[in-house]
């Protein structure tokens, strides 16, 4: 049943589709990381209507399926005269959805910084911006890197959803090849293996970081 010659024939095509998967993963996660931080700040805003609307928006995005959000963006943006390539829409969708999770991660990291650190910063007359960039975030981010890594892996595994809005990523390419040759076993197996090859070592790396970052003293020795 399994044909090795067919396997080697389709592998290059699948690998080039994997590139799209990686682009979507990296850019989607980058967007999620930045936007997540923005949500965190908006939710902490002193002006009530800003913080409460940010909270509401974040909750809404987080509590609805990513697939619906992708469809929504893909089919409604053109009616606002915003015409973007499917991949771009996909990246925006992934970034937006995961930003809501990352926002929670940032919040946890920020709250774990001792309140005395804020007071020390004040006693040295740092501006609010300096307090964030020099004192709070450098302490808040390292401990949450493993958690962020987990979301990166999860996001990676969700990229096949982009097939639904016609992005030719790994899964979509496999489907196209499969239906072309009426041979599915090899292509879908390969897709699974490619995903595994990247997600498993990443999860080991995350575990390693988790242990390493737990004890900052060791890191600094």
């Amino acid at each position: 049943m399994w044909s090795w010659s067919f396997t080697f024939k389709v592998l290059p095509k699948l690998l080039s589709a994997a590139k799209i998967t990686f682009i979507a993963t990296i850019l989607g996660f980058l967007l999620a990381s930045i936007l997540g931080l923005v949500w965190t700040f908006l939710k902490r805003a002193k002006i009530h209507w800003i913080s409460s609307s940010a909270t509401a928006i974040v909750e809404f995005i987080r509590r609805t399926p990513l697939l619906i959000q992708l469809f929504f963006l893909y089919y409604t943006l053109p009616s606002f005269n915003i015409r973007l390539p499917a991949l771009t829409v996909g990246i925006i969708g992934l970034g937006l959805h995961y930003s809501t999770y990352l926002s929670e991660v940032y919040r946890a990291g920020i709250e774990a910084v001792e309140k005395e650190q804020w007071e020390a910063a004040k006693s040295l007359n740092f501006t609010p911006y300096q307090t964030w960039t020099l004192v709070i975030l450098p302490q808040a981010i390292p401990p949450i890197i493993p958690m962020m890594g987990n979301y990166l892996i999860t996001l990676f595994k969700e990229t096949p959803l982009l097939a639904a809005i016609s992005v030719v990523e790994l899964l979509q390419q496999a489907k196209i090849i499969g239906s072309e040759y009426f041979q599915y076993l090899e292509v879908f197996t390969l897709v699974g293996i490619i995903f595994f090859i990247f997600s498993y070592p990443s999860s080991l790396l995350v575990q390693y970081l988790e242990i390493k970052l737990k004890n900052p003293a060791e890191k600094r020795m």
Partner: protein
Amino acid sequence: MESADLIIKTARKSKIQKKDIKPEMIVHEGTLTTFDNPLVKYINVKKNFGELQVLKGIDLEVGYGEKLTIIGSSGSGKTTLIRMLMTLEKPSSGIMEIEGESLWTMKKNGKTVPADEAHLRKMRSKVGMVFQQYNLFPHMTVLDNCTIAPIKVKGMDPEEAKEQAIQMLKRVKMSDKINYYPNQLSGGQKQRVAIARAVLMRPKILLLDEVTSALDPEMVGEVLNVLNEIAQEEKEMTMIFVTHELDFAREISDRIIFINEGYILEQGKPESILNDPKSERLQAFLSRFKENRNL
């Protein structure tokens, strides 16, 4: 019924009023408590945390270069009193001034309005603080802890900041550890770095809140020695100490104030306050210390 209620209410009211009467402040002979040109001034400053009234009416002036020590039992409001000057806590009422300028209000178009962040930053630049728990930045080396604020806040040239920091770290006997991180230091070492970090900002007023209370006993001496030297050398820097180290207070202070139940109850020169306390409260407070020392 009604009249009984009324009696109870009146009784309660009078009780509260009685409690709120400001006690006569005892000033020992020859003590300077007012200044032509005070650096710091508290006028009838009150502070509550919810229901709890911690400070009930503080009147205090501090002179330029003065070394002032605040004593009082735990929970009497010493920390709150100085935290307000660092703008870490806002008074519930009253006026606070630094160099004749109001800390919590400012003039805008001829009107007095609550201070904005810019005004607070300007005022804050005159004040520095050393905390009981050191509060060093754990992600920075000793040297970076000492140079970051001069460079970023005062805009000092990094080389110049580094040079000054090394000089200062020599004074607190930490110059051999400039590349260490705080978690590689003992409590006493951390506190000496924290002192260096605060002094390097050259504040007009340096606040020190029980800086030896969190230390193991064998480290208290090294920190007090360093502080003693700095207090002697920095003649122009006003320093306000909160401490239970009475021998230290006797040696370095120009004046000691005793806080009790939300008021300054007694103040005077160190010798006089410590050897000849007038109020029963201060006598009791001091005798508790003598007992502890004899243990």
